[in-house]
């Protein structure tokens, strides 16, 4: 026993020795590293130009928090690896965090002072809540704002200030089974919500348990329909936002959309879970539904998981009287309090460079934020045409800047699916949203 205790003590002493050594090496933030410009032309390779300011930084340790389904993907890790070979003075530690958890984690990090140097979500929402550093000076120094799609810039902008760099972008389209359409004698995809109702009714076969369409109860996704009908749930007068949840067009759109399931029975009632993305694609992929609304990521998913359904897959813009949809995707930002803004911003530039943005699209189905990157032949895929068309008019979901209003909007849609009156429900949601916007700090 004694021998064991002595051995254990020995091991602990050795380990504590290792610990203090590791600590010492990490605690040399001002150590100077001689960084020389590379022999090759980085710009020719589709990368940002060599940045003298970053090269002159002392030894810097970056901790970056990326969404869990990005953090360990090859394009991201390869970009970090190459970045570190050009800037050996910068080390990067990547942490994967669930998308929905990012807000809480960043809030706690900012309030405790132990902040990461980069985080991944919707930069504007974090800027609005005082959780992100404004990066306008770095943007001005970069001078490439005009290369970005306007929607991408909107995802990082709050009240005129830019809080991050958009990483990828997406929007929603109408996905349908062209074989089912042919068999029902339907020549083309529906162009309005009324046409969608008629087409979905035709495609519904109760005996076979097949539906013409799959609705979903996501407030974010339904906002796409609202935009496509030519209105918005938030109105902006300069920097001042006002809630517009009970706008007559919103009321009518929600009524028609939910009626697809509740009145016409040409769609199943969406499941009650918060995550709404799995149900429609599963219904479509298994042949239980002929159409649904989703993003380009589901094209890749149908190809991988439901190859038979992929053979008959066709896409179109969302059926609506106007054009556009919700603008999704994500952006990178520097949480409030981080001292490594320059290095962090440079790494963001690398992630959205031509070399790695196209890889993000091809390997991960995450589409680029720079307009010229859509000239790549990868985007000649006819299934992506309606997506690229919709991107031009897509609008970001700014309600996310007001969490309570965002919840009221999502809950309103869910309640209508559960049987509540549309008008009354949206009036109540409007009241909550007005209060939330007024109380926002």
């Amino acid at each position, binding site marked *: 026993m004694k021998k064991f205790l002595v051995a254990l003590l020995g091991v602990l002493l050795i380990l504590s020795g290792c610990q203090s050594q590791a600590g010492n090496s990490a605690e040399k933030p001002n150590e100077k590293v001689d960084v020389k410009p590379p022999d090759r032309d980085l710009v020719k390779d589709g990368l940002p130009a060599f940045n003298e300011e970053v090269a002159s930084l002392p030894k810097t340790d970056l901790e970056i928090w990326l969404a869990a389904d990005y953090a360990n993907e090859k394009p991201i890790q390869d970009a970090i690896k190459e970045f570190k070979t050009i800037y050996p003075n910068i080390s990067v530690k990547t942490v994967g965090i669930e998308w929905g958890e990012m807000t809480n984690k960043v809030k706690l990090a*900012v309030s405790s002072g132990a902040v990461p140097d980069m985080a991944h979500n919707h930069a504007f929402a974090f800027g609005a809540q005082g959780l992100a550093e404004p990066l306008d000076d770095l943007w001005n120094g970069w001078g490439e704002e005009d290369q970005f799609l306007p929607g991408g810039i909107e995802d990082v902008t709050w009240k005129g200030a830019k809080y991050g760099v958009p990483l990828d972008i997406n929007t929603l389209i109408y996905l349908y089974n062209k074989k089912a359409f042919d068999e029902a004698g339907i020549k083309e995809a529906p162009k309005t919500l009324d046409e969608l109702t008629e087409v979905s009714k035709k495609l519904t076969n109760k005996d076979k348990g097949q539906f013409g369409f799959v609705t979903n109860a996501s407030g974010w996704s339904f906002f796409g329909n609202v935009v496509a009908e030519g209105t918005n749930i938030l109105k902006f007068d300069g920097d001042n936002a006002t809630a517009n949840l009970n706008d007559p067009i919103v009321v009518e759109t929600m009524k028609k959309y939910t009626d697809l399931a509740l009145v016409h029975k040409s769609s*199943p*009632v969406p499941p*009650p879970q*918060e995550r709404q993305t799995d*149900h429609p694609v599963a219904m479509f992929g298994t042949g239980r539904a002929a159409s649904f609304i989703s993003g380009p990521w589901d094209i890749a998913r149908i190809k991988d998981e439901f190859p038979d359904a992929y053979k008959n897959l066709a896409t179109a813009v969302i059926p609506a009287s106007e054009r556009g949809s919700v603008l999704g995707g994500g952006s990178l930002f520097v949480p*409030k309090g981080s001292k490594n803004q320059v290095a962090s911003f440079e790494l963001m530039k690398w992630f959205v460079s031509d070399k790695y943005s196209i890889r993000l699209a091809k390997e991960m189905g995450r589409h680029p934020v720079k307009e010229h990157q859509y000239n790549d032949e990868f985007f000649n895929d006819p299934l992506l045409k309606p997506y690229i068309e919709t991107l031009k008019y897509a609008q970001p979901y700014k309600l996310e800047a007001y969490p309570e209003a965002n919840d009221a909007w999502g809950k309103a849609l869910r*309640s209508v699916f559960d049987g509540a009156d549309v008008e009354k429900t949206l009036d109540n949601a409007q009241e909550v949203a007005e209060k939330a916007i007024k109380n926002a*700090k």
Partner: protein
Amino acid sequence: MKTETVPSMNIKKAKNNRELHKFKDILGSYLFVLPALSFLFLFSIVPIIYLIWLSFTDYSLPNPAVFIGLENFSRMLEDKLFLKSIFNTLVYTFGSMALGLVFALAIAVLLNRQLKGLRIFKVFYFLPTITSEVITAMIFLWVFDNNLGILNYLLKVLGMENPPAWLLEPTTAMLILIFIGAWRGAAYNTPIFLAALQSVPQSYYEAARLDGANAWKQFIHISLPSITHMLVYSMVMSVIGSFQVVAVVDILTNGGPMDSTMVAIKHIWQQSFEFNYVGYGASLSLVLFPFLLLITWLQLKLSSRKES
């Protein structure tokens, strides 16, 4: 003189030694519990004190907390959803506790009878407890989903045209949550009840049999009173566990339909972290404490009356 002083000195010395030993014993005991007590103090007592302070503040991260007195508590009175969530939690707690304890007791009694083939069952009955709540919820989602779930698929195969939308109806959604809670509770309590039943002296049963008592009477008059202490323990633990339910609700119903399965912890979490009303969230959690205390006290009172 000498002969008198030596014994008295010895007695004094012995007394001193005894006291020293006693002191060392006490000091040793305290030193042994010190690490555990430090952890308890640091990770339970300090957060509780901090929570009490937070409940009197307006605190939204990352801004500093501002003292607002009793404002959070007066706001609570107007929070209809909180009252509803307390009601839902009570329904869930009593439903899952009652059902879970009955299941557990029934299984424990069967296992105690050592019937043939039950040994294999012993391997499986604890599985629900060691399965994570999230996985449990996912399993039941695949069972009860009205479009893609296995239950409705089977009901359709059996000829039912419109099987129920289990998770979309307030009553069935709550019943399913209660059933899952009971399923997990039964798995946790079965070995406890089995151990308690096995500790009841066999001579009691032999005497009862000689007096002509049947199996039911033996269960009511011998088994049940002998394991009352364990029943109370399980009830208290079930109430505390049920009040903390959130993962299953989050995954299966998200508090719906129409807030019919919104439970207290989910509401508190939403207020504190989703809406960033940390101070208000703290005051809501503080209100749960007397609830739990009252229920536990009632249970202990009830059991002590039974035992006496």
